[in-house]
């Protein structure tokens, strides 16, 4: 976990320190504005496996997925529409005094969404919303002490 954070931080710093130009329309660079964007989702993606039977156990799992999918965006100045495909895989083995859950989960997801940039600076802040459809399978075995269920 710490290695991944350090690696992505160093990578971000090295690439950011070499970047001078911007693809955004408001920036001073006069080269053509690039409308298409293809993104690879990587790094730290926290993914929570659904709890077994009880909402009380819902927050107990968190997995890191290093690469989860690809994303395409089409920009229209400050607005963008996006289409994404994600695949999450998690293999888990939780074993403590009061709860055990062991197995694996896979979920595929299709997303479509809208975004709007609301800053003029090089660092572009944006907000948006996505609609998604996901389907998957969770195959495992679990047990808990009676007072938790």
């Amino acid at each position, binding site marked *: 976990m710490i290695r991944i954070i350090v690696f992505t931080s160093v990578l971000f710093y090295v690439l950011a320190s070499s970047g001078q130009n911007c*693809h955004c329309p408001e920036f001073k660079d006069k080269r053509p504005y690039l409308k298409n964007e293809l993104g690879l989702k990587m790094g730290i993606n926290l993914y929570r496996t659904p709890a077994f039977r009880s909402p009380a156990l819902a927050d107990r799992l968190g997995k890191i997925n290093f690469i989860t999918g690809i994303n395409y965006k089409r920009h229209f100045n400050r607005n963008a529409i996006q289409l994404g495909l994600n695949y999450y895989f998690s293999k888990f083995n939780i074993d403590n005094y009061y709860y055990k859950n062991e197995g694996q989960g896979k979920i595929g997801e299709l997303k479509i969404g809208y975004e709007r940039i609301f800053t003029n600076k090089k660092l572009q802040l944006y907000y948006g*919303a996505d609609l998604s459809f996901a389907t998957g399978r969770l195959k495992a075995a679990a047990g808990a002490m009676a007072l938790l269920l």
Partner: protein
Amino acid sequence: MTLEPYDIYTKQFGLSPTLGFNYPLGYRFSVSMELSIRWIYYTNNDREKPNASDNNKWQNNIFFNPLQLLSVNYHF
């Protein structure tokens, strides 16, 4: 404690408000980070327990899931 097997097939429809930023790395590359909350409308079907009462029952829930933190982008 005894372990109980489960084999859940899930279908989910989701709506995710998102807040993020994009930072250019040169002309063609950028990185972006975003946080989202996801409201889902879902159904589960446990094939280990075909007669379970909550099989194929549509429910809704709010997750911080997935919390997508980083992506590397290519512009063209």
